[in-house]
């Protein structure tokens, strides 16, 4: 296997190669959660135990369910927001009473019901690379030579003339983030894997902030792979 080969893409069946669906771990997370879950007192107590109120929102329940059924998934805020949209709360009964003395919920039933079994491609495209970009926005530049490293990244990204001309670290950072955002939203690099897209931001951050050459090498490899003009699902990384 060559350095620039995409093993995941080659392993796909012909129909997947033809339709190029976005690969995301969010689909695995979604499938790990049952289609319908009755929220009993014990689940309710655990869900609200971390908050200050007794509100039972879909966000809270889904976040709890992801922890229960997909341990170690460690989803970013944006990703959790996308999973939330695949569920709804179904409530029966007029007046729900939660009793912490008897450990019961009476007067009705609360259910979390899955309304989508797979993630919408458009939704996945919208969060492509976002987690990695957030890391890049909030990182601190502490090592010497970060301006040069930012210029190198911008040259590889292309269409970053304003950032290259500027001397400001903030402008350069903004330019990199904005350019990567355009690349992902317009699918310029044809990355079809959300985790791989997130890694781009992390690699850039790691190289710019810490001068990590392995991260730079991974970024360059990915850039070379984009020249084939084929969908990219995976690449061989250097640790």
């Amino acid at each position: 296997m060559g350095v620039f080969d995409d093993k995941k893409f080659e392993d796909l069946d012909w129909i997947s190669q033809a339709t190029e669906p976005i690969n995301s771990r969010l689909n695995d997370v979604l499938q790990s959660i049952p289609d319908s879950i009755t929220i009993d007192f014990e689940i309710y107590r655990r869900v609200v135990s971390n908050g200050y109120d007794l509100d039972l929102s879909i966000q809270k329940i889904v976040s709890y369910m992801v922890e229960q059924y997909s341990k170690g998934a460690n989803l970013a805020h944006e990703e959790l927001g996308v999973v939330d949209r695949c569920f709804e709360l179904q409530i029966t009964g007029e007046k729900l009473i939660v009793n912490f003395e008897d450990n019961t919920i009476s007067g009705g039933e609360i259910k979390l019901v899955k309304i989508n079994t797979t993630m919408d491609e458009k939704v996945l495209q919208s969060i492509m690379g976002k987690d990695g970009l957030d890391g890049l926005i909030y990182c601190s530049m502490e090592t010497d030579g970060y301006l040069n490293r930012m210029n190198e990244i911008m040259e590889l990204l292309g269409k970053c003339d304003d950032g290259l001309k500027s001397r400001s670290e903030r402008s350069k950072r903004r330019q990199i983030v904005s350019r990567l955002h355009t690349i992902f939203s317009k699918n310029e690099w044809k990355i079809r894997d959300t985790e791989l897209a997130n890694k781009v931001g992390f690699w850039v951050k790691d190289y710019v902030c810490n001068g990590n050459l392995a991260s730079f090498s991974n970024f360059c490899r990915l850039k070379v792979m984009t020249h084939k003009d084929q969908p990219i699902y995976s690449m061989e990384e250097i640790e």
Partner: protein
Amino acid sequence: MTKLLALTQDFGVSRPIFALYLNDHGELEGSTRNPIYKYEPTPIEGDILSELVCECYYEDFDHRCSEFVIIRRDIASKAMAKIRAQTKDFVEKNSDMKSPRQGKLYRWIARSMPTNDEFNDTLIMLYLYWKPHTGTSMAGLRSSQKHIENTMAILTAMMEKHEQ
């Protein structure tokens, strides 16, 4: 503070039973501030300290043990803070000065009045002396000139003693 703390001893807590309501976003809302069986402390009739402590009653829902808890010391401290604030207002409203806030006594109460338990106990005794003879209105505050004059004199003496 001993008197205030003693008044909190009989306080109970609300039962941890709540109603959940469906909001417009299809989510359930519940508030720990509104349990179905809410505990309301009853003050001892005619006891102004008891009324004050009951006003300061505060309970909090502890998610770890799933029940309401009260911190008696906090309630007593809150009541004490109210006594200090009311003493300050009393001086402001009954001072002979044009700008009472510029007065030595007012400034001492606002900034340097001691906060130890012994001093607080004295302040509570003084509060019990002047409070029944005043109202919240300006007219009420001026209703008992003798008590007002005595209180102002006692506070001035306390200030002079502590300044030494």
